[in-house]
């Protein structure tokens, strides 16, 4: 901003009314709005005017930890219902050093994650082409629609008994369950990705001399990628929940089996650790997928 002398010789300052910038810390804590939001007069009902409120998140976490500490150290809850801090800490060290039932802690986590990735992988490999076929051909749509629409509302867990009857409780059975959980999500995602293409894009491609196959490869596929990615993200989340539940029913390894077996030995501390690990991994998967998405599909929503 420059000060320019005006006709009268006196100086006119072209300076906006000073705006005090809140500190970065205040903004990070959610105690101050960014300068743009502060200029808004309508805030109630404007979703962008609601900030993270991070300070309050800290309050919640600290309160919960305090509650934990007080109730257990005072002996208000018995260790069998909820373990003390020390018990959990000691157990974690022990699990880390000795593993659980002769299997390292990281291996329990690894095997669960591995099952999810395998299930989602095969679900995508089979589901994406099927979804494409359903979006592109009446025959394929007609053939598969009854199956897809029937399976869509059935929670994967309801399939466990059948799968145990058919395939037993070995690794194949678990992967099959996760495959099915991912499959229908992927079919539906791919199908809606295909159906969502703007006809003017398809027309433009044909008018530029593209063949059917080229339209499929260069227009319909990239256009469907954002939806497909959302499908993969959803499938990961659903499969993570499903694998834990499946391991609760029957498995020797995996986070789910770990907490189930621990329960049988009344090792509540191990159960709590397992639950925390499940939460953290589920959250990490979601965050990782969002990151990947921003990196791989930067054009999402920009059509």
């Amino acid at each position, binding site marked *: 901003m420059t000060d320019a002398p005006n006709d009268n010789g006196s100086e006119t300052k072209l300076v906006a009314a000073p705006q005090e910038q809140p500190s970065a810390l205040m903004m990070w804590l959610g105690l101050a709005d960014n300068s743009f939001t502060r200029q808004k007069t309508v805030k109630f009902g404007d979703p962008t005017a609601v900030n993270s409120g991070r300070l309050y998140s800290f309050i919640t976490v600290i309160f919960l930890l305090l509650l934990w500490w007080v109730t257990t150290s005072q002996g208000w809850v018995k260790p069998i219902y909820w373990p003390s801090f020390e018990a959990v800490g000691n157990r974690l060290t022990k699990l880390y050093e000795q593993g659980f039932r002769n299997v390292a802690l990281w291996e329990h986590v690894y095997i669960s994650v591995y099952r999810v990735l395998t299930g989602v992988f095969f679900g995508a490999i089979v589901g994406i082409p099927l979804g494409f076929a359903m979006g592109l051909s009446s025959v394929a749509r007609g053939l598969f629609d009854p199956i897809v629409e029937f399976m869509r509302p059935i929670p994967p867990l309801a399939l466990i008994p059948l799968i145990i009857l058919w395939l037993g409780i070995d690794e194949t059975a678990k992967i099959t369950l996760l495959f099915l959980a991912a499959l229908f999500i992927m079919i539906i995602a791919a199908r809606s990705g295909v159906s969502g293409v*703007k006809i*003017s*894009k398809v*027309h*433009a*491609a*044909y*008018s*530029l*001399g*593209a*063949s059917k196959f*080229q339209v499929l490869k*260069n*227009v319909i596929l*990239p*256009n469907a*990628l954002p939806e497909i990615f959302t499908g993969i993200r959803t499938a990961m989340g659903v499969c993570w929940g499903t694998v834990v539940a499946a391991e609760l029913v029957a498995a020797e390894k995996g986070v789910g089996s770990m907490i189930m077996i621990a329960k049988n030995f009344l090792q509540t501390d191990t159960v709590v650790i397992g639950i925390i690990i499940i939460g953290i991994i589920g959250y990490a998967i979601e965050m990782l997928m969002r990151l990947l998405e921003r990196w791989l*599909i*930067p*054009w999402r929503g*920009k*059509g």
Partner: protein
Amino acid sequence: MDDADHNGLSVDKVSMVFTLPGGGSVHALNNVSLDLASGELMSVLGPSGCGKTTLLNIIAGFLAPTEGGVFLNGHQVTGPAAERGMVFQQGALFEWLDVRKNISFGPRMMGKSKKEWGPKVDHLLDIVGLGDFGDKPVYQLSGGMQQRVALARCLANDPDVILMDEPLGALDALTREKMQGLVLKLWKETGKTIVLITHSVEEALFLGERLIVMAPRPGRIHREYRLPFAEQGLTISPREIKASADFVEKREEILSMIWEMEEEIMGRASA
């Protein structure tokens, strides 16, 4: 009509009836005939719903007419092809590709190597004033810039005919005027046959060597004009032409013609 030796675009007694899913039908076009010599620029005006887009879609080959046919250089149009390029109003760029990849789409689909299309695409980028934007994703460009990409993409394919449906409709007035100049320049330089649909009477008058005004229900050609303004526009400034008595008179004449049609539609609708 003897189509075999006709060089250019001809629309021959085209009628289009849409059958509605719930029964009933819409007579979108009735007996529309047109002949465009190679290199002519024709603009198309008409009230909303008079069948302009339908006509363009038939010429492009996206729709088969109920009756009649479209011929280009003697052969009948049966589907979309690279000889007839299309510029849509908006949203027809491929947002997953950068500007250069969008423009080179046609040549790449035809299996041409980068050596072949590279210099041409660079040249087109310069012509439409996007020399520095080749590597930008298209969604980072403004609306006017995106339409210039759409124009360049169409030209990169070297079509015989360029079909435009409201190509400048989504732009602000100033950008629109600038783009009109660009269209005029490109038309003269490339000698393409162009059919341009627009809602702006001024734009239709300024750009069209020929102009047709369509009437609705059923969609048909109402009046045809031959205009001098596009030719003048190459030497005289656009503002001057648009202010000339001749231009203003034509503009008012066509405006009131379209107004009357609109009022008739409203009258019929409320009757």
